[in-house]
């Protein structure tokens, strides 16, 4: 009987996975972490130089290692 109850309790506990969903929601990117997306980026220096020349605007060039778009840098 004890084994049966213990088994049922484990199954109930196993099914209470609301904390997983909450963490997944809580850990999504925040607006403060998405400021990078408020800028229109080109991924090609040649295209940026052409656009700079065409529009007579300066070019902001950011160089880095890794993948900035996904924060893996």
């Amino acid at each position: 009987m004890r084994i049966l109850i213990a088994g049922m309790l484990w199954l109930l506990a196993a099914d209470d996975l609301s904390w997983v969903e909450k963490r997944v929601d809580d850990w999504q990117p925040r607006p403060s972490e998405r400021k990078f997306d408020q800028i229109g980026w080109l991924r090609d220096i040649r295209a940026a130089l052409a656009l700079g020349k065409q529009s007579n605007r300066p070019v902001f060039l950011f160089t880095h290692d890794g993948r900035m778009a996904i924060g893996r840098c």
Partner: protein
Amino acid sequence: MEDYGSKGTVPDDEKKAYQKIYHAALAKKLSTGTVHVYVLTPDGDPIDSIHVAHAGTAKVTATLKAAIETLGTKEGKPLVEIKPQAATPRAGDGDLVLYLIARAVPGKTAGFWQELPGEDFIIYSREEGKRFLPPAGTAIGGGYEVDREVALKLLTYFYPSTENNDVSKNVVEQVSMKGTLIAEGRVRLDATLRMKHPFYHKMDEARVDAVAVGVVEFDSAIRKFRMATEKATYNGGTFGVAVKEVR
């Protein structure tokens, strides 16, 4: 900048465009580096630069304002479309696309870059995705092992922001993912991982230790996938990983 090296993937013209700017900056005795900000004239001539360590909001704003003043730039609308940079990749019909976010969480602050989360998209074919699910005939409460290859395809991205994002340099020391059918069409996943992940591209002793729990809902295919670390550490610091299906 890996893409701009001699073995990099960008076209030669693109590499040359970068080298021209880099050498012009050097000639002008501007600061230079691989992780760097440069401000160029409309003709592509560097007029200012900032080392990333100094490129905070105030410094960047001041540098841009100075460039606007020097060049007499007129205000105007953005010339490039503003859109999310981390877009869900294209995938085939029936593919399972998992979106992963790895971030610093309350705990010990050490051992990795804390400022921004790292994100990844992992694509499973329909057949691969099914390997998260219980074998036919599994009773409610019954357990099974998820295929190591399938588990690792996801778990190898369980690391926080570092200088190295080449997962082929990870060394997995222990991995397991156990599934339990907890209700009709609902599975619990319990994963553990111990993995070396060099902070830089050179092997070191930095390790991930992670325990994660997932919940998967399915019928003929996976309809919902959620996973979060219960606890995870890397290189002396505490981090968390969350995964959800986006397709």
